[in-house]
């Protein structure tokens, strides 16, 4: 009697399955992985760095127009992993919320607040049938003058939490395993370079290939340079070389 009554709708819209799960949300997570891109982000002592793969699908496409790393406001940025079109929609919403906050309160929205706001929006899509959950995971990075470097991840389920290091996308689990091993000791105080290199090393390890600057996008924000920025190819090359030299 309970088997037929949901009439299989639990796989089409976000209502509960018999075990109390939301299949649509779980499928949204799969959509994040389906794009085949992995993102890794690491928080250091006074810097945060996020690295994402850059896959240009066609040689004729202008590589400058392919990007998943965006500035949200002066001191923070976001990396979107998952369906590109859903990511655009989320980006618009994120920027609009951040701008609203600045207008209303006169100062930049703190990273945990913008993460919470987006997570609450994601939650609405998991509860209302008229809109599907979006297939994007968002990783927010920023510099807070009181709390220091911040790293938050929001997922399609509406869950958000702060991280020392996190990953999203196709090789998320492998990246997390790698990071857990590296950061097992409690209070590793990573410098700016160590932060960037750990993120790059993690990505390199999970994609099992040597990275070139054109394969990745690196977004950083640090105490010395509190303005969120994307590293140039030369800077990325520097970090990659320093990384290989260490080995």
């Amino acid at each position: 009697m309970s088997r037929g009554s949901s009439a299989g709708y639990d796989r089409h819209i976000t209502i509960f399955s018999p075990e109390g799960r939301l299949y649509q949300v779980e499928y949204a997570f799969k959509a994040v992985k389906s794009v085949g891109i992995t993102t890794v982000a690491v928080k250091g002592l006074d810097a945060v760095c996020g690295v994402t793969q850059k896959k240009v699908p066609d040689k004729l496409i202008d590589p400058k127009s392919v990007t998943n790393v965006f500035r949200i406001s002066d001191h923070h940025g976001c990396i979107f992993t998952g369906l590109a079109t859903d990511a655009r929609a989320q980006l618009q919403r994120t920027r609009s919320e951040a701008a609203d906050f600045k207008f209303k309160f006169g100062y930049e929205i703190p990273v945990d607040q913008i993460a919470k706001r987006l997570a609450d929006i994601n939650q609405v899509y998991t509860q209302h049938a008229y809109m599907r959950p979006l297939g994007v995971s968002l990783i927010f990075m920023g510099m807070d003058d009181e709390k220091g470097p911040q790293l938050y991840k929001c997922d399609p389920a509406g869950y958000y939490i702060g991280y020392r290091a996190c990953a999203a996308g196709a090789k998320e689990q492998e990246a997390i395993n790698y990071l857990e091993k590296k950061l097992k000791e409690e209070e590793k105080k990573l410098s700016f370079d160590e932060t960037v290199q750990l993120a790059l090393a993690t990505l390199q390890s999970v994609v099992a290939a040597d990275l070139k600057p054109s394969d990745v996008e690196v977004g950083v924000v640090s105490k010395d340079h509190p303005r969120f920025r994307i590293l140039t190819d030369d800077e990325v090359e520097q970090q990659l070389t320093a990384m290989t030299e260490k080995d």
Partner: protein
Amino acid sequence: MGDSDYSFSLTTFSPSGKLVQIEYALNAVAAGATSLGIRAKNGVVIATEKRMPSILMESHTLEKISFISETTGMVYSGMGPDSRVLLRKARKFAQSYYQTYKEPIPVVQLVRETAFVMQEFTQSGGVRPFGVSLLIAGCDEQGPHLYQVDPSGSFFAWKASAIGKNMVNAKTFLEKRYSDDMEIEDAIHTAILTLKEGFEGQITEHNIEIGQVTDNQKFKVLTPLEVKDYLGEVE
């Protein structure tokens, strides 16, 4: 609510007269981390497990126990994102009550309103029930109160209760240990012991959260140091 193309309810009766969506929501709650609450003579304590799936997550950024107003707080078991919606609505209602009556909201009225919201989502068009049960704790003129609110919107006042994964064992433990003349300090110790019963691994001040409210003290979430002291006392 009543979204454009979904003017029909997603929660409908099965042939046997059950609302299966609500039952499934309760399954989602039963899969969540254990939370419990104990009402003492002079206050209420609520506590929860806060186990992070990865060492990379920072547990202090996740707030499972939250204050609703100065004299009330809540903890949830189940889907965290859903609980944030209810928390926001509860806070707004508490403030709006204060604005009208210039008095802190009586706990039962706050609970009633929150339960009403949860019931709405079991009947309105195009929405699913909330996948959380809440334990709302508060002190008002009638004394200390502990209420449990379920996804169906039904609520009960409890002397002590537990929700989530380990609720059956926890409630059995609480039944044995509860006494009507408990003071808040005993209640906190009992809460910790109850959590310990079903806890996998070592309990520390970073993987549990405790909140308390007393007759003459505002609702507060204990700091990790305070929790550590209580853990030491319990050993």
